[in-house]
């Protein structure tokens, strides 16, 4: 590099001003560049975390909800117990008989199948809607409004989620996730009652 220019300088007879090589060795600069890249790559997070949005009704609103209780045919209660146990029952236990708990699990064959069967009509509608969207028959905005419409339809099931104190956070998120997967628009996280706990304990011992 530098030699080439020197040669050129010797050719001319005139006393030329000494030419400085215009090329600079860029290796240290590259080193620096990559060092900084590494630093930025390690200290930064590229993506924002995924989140689940939930809105909880305030206390006075809950009481109002309790007044217009859900129809027994739509109601479903999911109980989350310790060690990842999961029970559910249909109805709201208003006919005096204690509800019969059914044991299931968090897998896709477990609670998801139950919810999907229960919510079959809505699932079908949503599936159709998704297909329409893929075929560009409905636009994004329409899709959103109709999706929430289907999810909140009058005949859709209403799910009450009751978590025991010894269940863990993952269980709760899993169940909320299932609500999204199964397109259940109406669900609530409700405090567990002592009766539910007793029922759960009884069912557990009976199973053993």
């Amino acid at each position: 590099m530098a030699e080439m220019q020197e040669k050129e300088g010797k050719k001319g007879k005139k006393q030329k001003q000494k030419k400085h090589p215009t090329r600079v060795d860029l290796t240290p600069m590259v080193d620096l560049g990559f060092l900084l890249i590494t630093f930025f790559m390690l200290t930064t997070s590229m993506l924002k975390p995924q989140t689940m949005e939930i809105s909880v009704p305030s206390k006075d609103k809950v009481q109002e909800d309790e007044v217009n209780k859900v129809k027994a045919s739509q109601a479903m209660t999911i109980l989350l117990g310790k060690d990842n146990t999961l029970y559910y029952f249909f109805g709201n236990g208003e006919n005096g008989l204690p509800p019969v708990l059914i044991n299931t699990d968090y897998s896709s064959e477990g609670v998801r199948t139950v919810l999907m069967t229960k919510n079959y009509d809505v699932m079908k509608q949503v599936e159709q809607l998704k297909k329409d969207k893929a075929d560009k028959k409905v636009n994004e905005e329409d899709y959103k409004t109709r999706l929430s419409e289907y999810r909140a339809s009058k005949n859709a099931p209403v799910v009450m989620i009751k978590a025991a104190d010894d269940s863990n956070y993952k269980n709760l998120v899993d169940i909320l996730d299932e609500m999204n997967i199964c397109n259940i628009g109406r669900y609530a996280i409700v405090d567990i009652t002592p009766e539910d706990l007793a029922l759960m304990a009884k069912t557990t011992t009976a199973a053993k």
Partner: protein
Amino acid sequence: MPKVKVPRKTTNVDMTAMCDVAFLLLTFFMLTSNFVAKEPIVVAVPSSISEFKIQERDILTVLIDKEGKVFIGLDAQNDRREVLDSVGKAYSISFTEKELNEYSKIGMMGVPIERMQAFLALKQEERDSKESALGIPTDSLNNQFKVWIRKARKVNSNLRLAIKADSQTPYKVIKDVMATLVEIKENRYNLITSLEKDPNQ
């Protein structure tokens, strides 16, 4: 014996192109990234199919670890001073200018307010120790968590709450936190999860 001369090839490579690439990447990383806030504890968040992203700014993160210790962190540095000041007033503790400045540098903390002054007096390296990660009291008798959230909301009304809890956190802790939030009429918040594939797709 005449030596056979091996033609010497220059080892110098033109670095300009490489330099260009390096700085291009550097610029890209600088512009697209936001710094990871340091968290006093490591939590493994559960996964969900939700792809909802939280807003960019004005986030109050509530970090809950396996044992149920609660930490909070504000992302806006300017708000931190004000929040600490007003929380201090609520407990009749007045913080000096230096302490407020110190606090505005801390991303996330979980110290009861009565120990805050001692905590702020510590050196930066000492703050990460296990003893400093006590958690903010959330029990009903001494619910400092509630005060923090309420004051933070007063300082910045656009604040969005994000709960980041460990998968193994007992539900009881989550319930307490949620109940507190309902009490102060914080009805919408986000649960931070990691992404999982949607089985329907």
